[in-house]
C-alpha cells in the first residue's frame, strides 16, 4: 500500500481519536485561552498588548503545541500501538506524515481561535490587504510546527522522561517559526506601522523551514522510533 494512502489512514485515525476524546476542544483550547488572558493581565497597558499581540498568539500556540504533541503520542504508546504499527511493517514515513497532517489540522483550528481571541482581547484588526499574507503565514508556520512536533514527539515517546524532554527538544527547534511567524503576522496586521510586503520574506523562511523539517523528519522518523 502506498505511503500516501497509509499516511491518510493514520491522519484520519488521529482525527477520529480527537473527535471521540475532544481533548483539543475541552483541554487545549481552554489552556490556550487562559494563556492569552494571563498575558493580558501581565502586560496590562493597551499599547504594549497591541504591539506584542502577534508574538503572544504564537507563544500560546507553541505552548499548546507541546500539549497536542504529548497527546498525539500518548495515544500511540498507551497500549503499544506505535510499536504495533512498526511490527506490522507500516512505512515510518507514512506514519510521520499522517501524524503531522492530523496535528496540522488541530493546530490550524487552534491558531484561528487564538487570532480571534487576540482580536477581541488585544484589540487587533485584520486589514483586507493582509488576509492573504495572514493565511499563508498560518499554513506555512503550521506545517513547520507540525513537522518539528511530530519528529520530536516520536523521539521523546520512547523515553521515560518524555514530558520534560519534549519541551527541551521542541522549543529551541521551533524558535525560527516563532520569529518568522510573529514578524509575518505583524506585517499582515500592520502592527507598529509594518507593511504587508515586509512579511513575504518571512513566509519564505517559514516555507523553507517546513519543507526542510518535513523531508528530514520523514526520513529520520523510522530510525528514531525503532531505537
Amino acid at each position, binding site marked *: 500500500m502506498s505511503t500516501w494512502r497509509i499516511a491518510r489512514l493514520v491522519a484520519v485515525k488521529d482525527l*477520529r*481519536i480527537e473527535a471521540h476524546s475532544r481533548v483539543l476542544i475541552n483541554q487545549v483550547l481552554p489552556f490556550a485561552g487562559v494563556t492569552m488572558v494571563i498575558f493580558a493581565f501581565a502586560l496590562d497597558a493597551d499599547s504594549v498588548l497591541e504591539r506584542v499581540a502577534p508574538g503572544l498568539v504564537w507563544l500560546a500556540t507553541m505552548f499548546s503545541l507541546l500539549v497536542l504533541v504529548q497527546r498525539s503520542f500518548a*495515544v500511540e504508546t498507551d497500549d*503499544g*500501538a506505535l*510499536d*504495533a504499527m*512498526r*511490527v*506490522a511493517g507500516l512505512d515510518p514515513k507514512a506514519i510521520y506524515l499522517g501524524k503531522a497532517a492530523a496535528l496540522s489540522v488541530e493546530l490550524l483550528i487552534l491558531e484561528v481561535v487564538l487570532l480571534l481571541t487576540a482580536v477581541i482581547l488585544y484589540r487587533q484588526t485584520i486589514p483586507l490587504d493582509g488576509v492573504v499574507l495572514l493565511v499563508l503565514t498560518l499554513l506555512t508556520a503550521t506545517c513547520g510546527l507540525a513537522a518539528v512536533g511530530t519528529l520530536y514527539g516520536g523521539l521523546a515517546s520512547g523515553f521515560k522522561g518524555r514530558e520534560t524532554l519534549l519541551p527541551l527538544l521542541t522549543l529551541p527547534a521551533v524558535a525560527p517559526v516563532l520569529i518568522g511567524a510573529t514578524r509575518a503576522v505583524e506585517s499582515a496586521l500592520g502592527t507598529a506601522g509594518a507593511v504587508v510586503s515586509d512579511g513575504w520574506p518571512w513566509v519564505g523562511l517559514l516555507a523553507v523551514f517546513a519543507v526542510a523539517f518535513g523531508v528530514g523528519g520523514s526520513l529520520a522518523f523510522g530510525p528514531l522510533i525503532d531505537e
Partner: protein
Amino acid sequence: MDLEPSNSDIEDHKPVVALHDAVAVLGQFPALAGASLTVRRGEIVLLRGPNGAGKTTLLRLCAGLLPLVRGTGQILGLDLTTQRESVRRNVGLLGHQNGLYFDLTVGENVRFWGATVGATEAEIATAMERLGVADRLVDLPVRQLSAGQKRRTALACLVVRRAQLWLLDEPHAGLDASARDELDATLREAAGSGATIIVASHELERAGALSTRAVDVVAGQIYGEQS
C-alpha cells in the same frame, strides 16, 4: 473468512520458521546465542523457559524487529537478513500490550488495521465475528472492554491484516479463566485453519495443553523438542 491468512505465499512443505544457529543481540548482550528452530504450518509451538532466557528475543527476531547477527533465518520463506520489512508485514506479534487505541471503538480499531492491507468490509466483519467482538462490542470504546475482550480485539486485528505467523508473548497474562478458555479456543481454531502460532508463556500447564509441541529456551539457546 477463515482465520487462515488469505494471502499465504508459502508452500505447505516449507517450514514457516527456519532458524539455524541464530544469534541476536540486545545492546551488547547476546540474548540469543546460536538458536535453531523449525516450525511448520499449522503448529502451535510453546516456548518454555525462565525470565531472561531469550523467549521474547526469539519472538522479536522472528517478527523481523531484531537483526540477525549470525546464523541463518527464514520466516515464511523470507530471509531474515535481507527481507525484514517483508517479514514484518506477514507476521503478527502480540506482546504484553495489545496495540489498540483506547479512544476508538472496537470496530474502528479493526477497520484501521484492515485498511492498512486493503481488507474488504466483509473481511473485517467476519474477523470481528469469529473473534467474538462483533455485535454489542463493535461500537464500544476499547477503554470500556475487559482484558479478555481487548485481547480478542487485538487478535481480530491480527486476523484482519492477514498475519500468517502469530507470535504471542504471554497471551494469557491478565485474563480470567473464561477469557483464557476463549483465547485458547480461538488459537486452536486459527491453527486448525492453517495459521502458525508460537507462544511464549510461563503458564506451562495451560500453554502446554494448547500447544502441539514445546521447546525449552535456556540462556539464549533452544534445547530439544517435545511433542
